[in-house]
């Protein structure tokens, strides 16, 4: 035995630190990552700066209804005379919040399920059958059913979408953990007395971070699109608080005479999804070149 278990573990940690640095440098030089990153950053800044417009997004001005985009109303006004520019900015807060919550929630739960089923073979078949069952119906349909049952509220949209995207994340983390599990350093950790918990959360999970991060980025993008679709079907976050989806849903019946109501929030959704997708593509190229685009 040339190397002790401890040396293998120690050298592994040193390699990990060096790799983190290299990954960061690669990301900074990756074109689509940087473009996506800047788009997302600008949107977050815009969302946070929404109060700076000094306009109440829900203030109705009956005499200012259906004003097309012009100097005072950059994005025009809607059927209640509300300023659409302000509403799209405030909508960014809600839509990005939903996207982030869904990405984090499905990431955390999916990672836990994935690691557990990779570590405990007996749990594996049960957990994976549950995941298969969740994936039986199309994701958006599952979210529609759940959203309808939980009622039109922001938190039910978040739960419905997170549940719909958990199985894919769980599968990806499980696949990665199954590969890691067979590597030498896990055996080294085991002989040096590491508990199952320690192996799962200190070794299996960190080694699945790449695919997990990539997947969560794409989930973020899907969630923004799905929130809009749910709102359009009438099961999104309830008005009057603006989200990109419910601005479009509310403006739809006036689409012929006031096209601007639904045009700008749609651009915002597209831009946000585009930014997250670019970010995800960049992360995938750098962190996990072998991972394919998965829904």
């Amino acid at each position, binding site marked *: 035995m040339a190397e002790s278990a401890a040396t293998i573990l120690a050298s592994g940690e040193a390699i990990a630190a060096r790799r983190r640095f290299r990954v960061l440098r690669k990301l900074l030089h990756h074109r689509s990552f940087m473009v996506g990153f800047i788009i997302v950053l600008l949107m977050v800044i815009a969302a946070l700066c929404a109060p700076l417009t000094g306009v109440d997004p829900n203030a109705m001005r009956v005499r200012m209804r259906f004003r097309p985009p012009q100097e005072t109303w950059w994005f025009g006004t809607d059927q209640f005379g509300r300023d659409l520019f302000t509403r799209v900015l405030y909508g960014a807060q809600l839509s990005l919040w939903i996207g982030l919550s869904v990405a984090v929630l499905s990431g955390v739960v999916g990672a836990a399920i994935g690691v557990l089923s990779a570590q405990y073979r007996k749990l594996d078949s049960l957990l994976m*059958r549950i995941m298969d069952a969740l994936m039986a119906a*199309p994701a958006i*349909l599952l979210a529609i*059913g759940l959203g309808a049952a939980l009622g039109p509220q922001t938190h039910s949209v978040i739960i419905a979408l997170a549940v719909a995207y958990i199985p894919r994340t769980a599968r990806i983390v499980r696949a990665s953990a199954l590969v890691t599990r067979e590597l030498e350093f896990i055996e080294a950790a085991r002989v040096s007395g590491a508990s199952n918990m320690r192996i799962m959360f200190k070794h299996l999970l960190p080694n699945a971070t790449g695919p997990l991060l990539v997947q969560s980025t794409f989930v973020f993008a899907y969630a923004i699109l799905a929130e809009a679709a749910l709102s*359009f*079907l*009438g099961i999104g976050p309830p008005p009057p608080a603006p989200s990109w989806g419910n601005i479009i849903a509310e403006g739809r019946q006036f689409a*012929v005479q006031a096209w601007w109501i639904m045009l700008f929030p749609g651009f915002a959704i597209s831009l946000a999804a585009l930014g997250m997708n670019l970010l995800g593509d960049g992360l995938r190229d750098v962190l996990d070149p072998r991972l394919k685009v998965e829904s």
Partner: protein
Amino acid sequence: MLRGILMRLSQAVPVLLIFSVMVFMLMHLLPGDPALAIAGPDATPEAVQAIRQQLGLDRPLPIQLLEWFAHIAVGNFGESITLKQSVVSAVVERLPVTLSLSLVSLIVTLPIGIGLGVVAAYWRNSWIDAFVMVLALLGVSLPGFWVGILSVLYFSVQLGWFPPSGYVPLTEGGFWPWFASLIQPAIVLALFQIGFLARITRSAMLDVLDQDFIRTARAKGVDEWTTIAKHAFRNTLIPVVTVLGITLSLLVGGSVVIEQVFALPGIGRLIVQGILNRDYPLVQGTMLLFGFAFVLINILVDIIYTFVDPRVRYG
């Protein structure tokens, strides 16, 4: 081969069981009394009691679950409250619309999606690749229903090229009116799938093009067309078939939303109407049918897979 199919089918049984329990639980997720929620705020106590009895909500939960299974076993997926008909017959009535839309959309998706991916991979890192990949990225980033509404505003209202909404059955108007009523929603629906498929095809094709056997084919003087069409493309299809199930799932999921934009009386519209009317048995039954259909479709995809990839068949 047959053994493989049987094994795959037996794996589907627990999945279907779990899925049925989940859909059963859906109604019990409703905040408060489900009978009250279904009846609506203005209902009399008698009406609420009637619904409770009709749906068996007055019985203990385990009994309800057993009944649920017993009904599914004989193909009874429940009764719609508002339509006064069985969920199965309501779904069967609307199935041709959703199937037509999905089929036309799939026919649009497959050649364009796969074609774009192959073109991008073959001319990798050129402006063609960049252009195709931007298109694909837009496909997966634009909200379909929004593109649909804009498309109706421009192509139907402004230019009058297509009917803005509605569906003409094949049996009523013949092929062209049917096709005209579907082509616009089908293209809108295809955008996401095209982007998705082009991105996967490109990365699969890039993998194949780097393989030794492609270099061998070129080295021994096989002409470029044969190398790409026979050697590279056929191997690219293997990972592409794997995502066929996902593509179909995206397609049907997307059609639920797109049917709403174009007022197509399909299953998607049925579900949304069910939600708006608080007709939860209808929503449950339809979801259940969808889930069962997709489990079977995925088995079918696996079987197709064994034909495309001999390694799976003999391995």
